[in-house]
């Protein structure tokens, strides 16, 4: 399986993308079975870049437990499933995280009635977590560091965890802050739940590919970067055609393939980035459409703003 993922995908005519089994805003099938969400957009962009059609993706739902195996065993080409980039995953699990598409951190959500205002007050609480996630480890570390006790309830799926939390079977629900916001947004009474201010971990979420196939890693990495850069340079799905033909900015010209042929360096054609951006828009557009403040999930850009806006998004130069 070395170095031939691109060829395999092109032969197959379809990108196989490992996604969450259902996480509002990030990846979930709708009533007619179409997958939508923030992670899905990455898959579509890669498919557009590689195959020329954002719809030629096969989504393989993976659970917290099966996701990395699915990737390393070759069952999926790319894993776009809100997975945290950690040292051991990147090395020992033989994965390659190709970047960060969402800077997240683990937080806690509690019911307002509980009267808790800080995570430090959660000593002795029952806490719901999803098994097989980094949150499980962070949680252990955090409570240990603060010398507090807690009762973990290790839930298998997000839906189940929310259910437990809503029924009051746990005092607090912990997961990435984005997930918390998404969850809370869907409650019948969002105002009765608070997300505690403490963010207890860094959770850089990003797509991952298998170790060893560097070319494929480059493709996915630069597809993501293209989306981010596009936002930085103001390239949107609406003005992209126009900019492709008459942008003055040399960086944009290189990005959109109107001057240099960067695509050839990664085994693609000139228009790869253009197609990727057109698939669902640039990073900002995707964000706004899937999880942004206009959506029921209502996440603010926060850390995920461009570096120019005080965020952490910083695409390396296309050159």
């Amino acid at each position: 399986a070395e170095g031939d993922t691109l060829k395999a995908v092109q032969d197959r005519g379809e990108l196989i993308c490992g996604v969450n089994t259902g996480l509002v805003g990030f990846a979930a099938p709708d009533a007619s079975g179409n997958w939508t969400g923030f992670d899905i957009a990455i898959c579509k962009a890669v498919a557009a870049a590689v195959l020329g059609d954002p719809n030629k993706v096969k989504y393989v739902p993976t659970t917290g437990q099966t996701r990395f195996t699915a990737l390393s065993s070759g069952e999926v080409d790319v894993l776009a499933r809100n997975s945290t980039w950690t040292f051991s995953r990147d090395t020992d699990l033989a994965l390659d995280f190709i970047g960060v598409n969402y800077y997240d951190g683990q937080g806690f959500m509690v019911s307002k009635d509980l009267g808790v205002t800080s995570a430090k007050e959660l000593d002795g609480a029952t806490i719901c977590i999803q098994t097989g996630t980094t949150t499980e480890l962070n949680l252990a570390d955090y409570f240990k560091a603060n010398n507090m006790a807690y009762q973990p309830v290790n839930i298998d799926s997000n839906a189940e965890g929310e259910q437990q939390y809503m029924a009051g079977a746990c005092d607090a629900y912990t997961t990435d802050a984005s997930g918390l916001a998404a969850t809370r947004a869907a409650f019948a009474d969002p105002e009765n739940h608070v997300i505690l201010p403490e963010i207890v971990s860094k959770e850089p979420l990003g797509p991952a590919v298998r170790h060893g196939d560097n070319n494929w890693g480059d493709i996915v990495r630069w597809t993501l970067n293209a989306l981010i850069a596009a936002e930085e340079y103001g390239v949107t799905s609406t003005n992209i055609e126009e900019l492709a033909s008459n942008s003055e900015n040399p960086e944009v010209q290189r990005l959109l393939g109107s001057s240099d042929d960067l695509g050839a360096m990664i085994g693609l054609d000139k228009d790869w980035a253009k197609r990727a951006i057109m698939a669902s828009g640039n990073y900002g557009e995707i964000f706004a459409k899937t999880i942004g403040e206009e959506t029921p999930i209502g996440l603010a850009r926060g850390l995920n703003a461009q570096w120019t806006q005080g965020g952490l998004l910083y695409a390396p130069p296309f050159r």
Partner: protein
Amino acid sequence: MLLYDRRYRSMTIQVVVFILVMAAGWWLVDNTIRNLQALGKDFNFGFLFQRSGYDIGSPPIPYNSDDTHLRAAVVGLLNTVIISILGCIAATFLGTAVGIARLSNNWLFARLMTIYVEMFRNIPLLLWILIVYALLTEILPAPAAYRGEDPEWSKILFGNVALTNRYTAIPSIGLTNDPGMLDLGFRIMINWATIAFAVVLIGGWLVRRVVLNRAQAAQDRTGERPTTWWINLAIMTVPSLLLIWYFGLHLIQPELTGFNFSGGLNLQNGFVALWLALTLYTGAFIAEIVRAGILSVSKGQTEAAFALGLQPNRTMNLVILPQALRVIIPPLTSQYLNLTKNSSLAIAVAYMDLRGTLGGTTLNQTGRELEAILLMMLIYLALSLLISAGMNAFNARVKLKER
């Protein structure tokens, strides 16, 4: 030719089969090695000795996130064993009761039991686990409902048990005169008082057997069986009562402190739900087995016993049950095996059994799926073989009487 002589034919076939099997095995192993190489992975169990980093709710032995994956796996294994044993016991009682109830001539009750049995036999276990779990979480209150001057819910059984949607809080046992702990190594400790009770109970049981034997001897001698139940009762209770008094044993009622009840034991709902669901589900199957077992003893046996003047309850104990047992045990064994294996559905209710620890979080955190799953399968296999062996031994004992 080798194929046409009976003596060589079977040898030939066996050799061919052997070669084929070895080739297939070699093929699998070779593929695995090459795949592992391609992925840059190796096959080793070193990960078991690394720090696990995750916590487990209510571990049966001391465990925290600083312990190794191995210890986490042991915790999971113990949880599996606990749920299996409790499940088997409860399901046996339930199944026997229902099996007999279905044979009762009470029209209504027999019908109800039939409905119960059919419902549980024809709907997936996973659904029952989820339903029981959901019932517990949705219907029972959060612990907070017990808070305050005038709580919405109050503890039942004289304030000893609090039902909540997280756990069932039951009292734990306190000692005023604590004799201290016995350290078994590996941070597993047992209170001396527990050991004392165990000794007293086992001793009492042995003495009871002596008493029973003597009663039997007396019956053999005189025909009349001396009443022994009060002696037995005394033997089983008095020493324990003395110990209770000596150690100052008392119940520590669960109290709501902070978020949760403490002081007592909190039986997690995942555990309770899994236990209930496994019991109800397997109980339905056992009911059918028991019923079939009893029906398998021919009517002539009952008639013969009646004709000899034996009363119905004696007939049941001395004639019907011993024979029914022989029919019941083999399928009962496979139900026990099923229950043990089905306990791996604990994954659905956040009960950290072997599947949840070794085959779940550990596998996921370390990415050692090959090792973890193989190890897990071997452990389940060993458990199954153990149960089979135990039941077969028991079966042999029951059977021995026949021939």
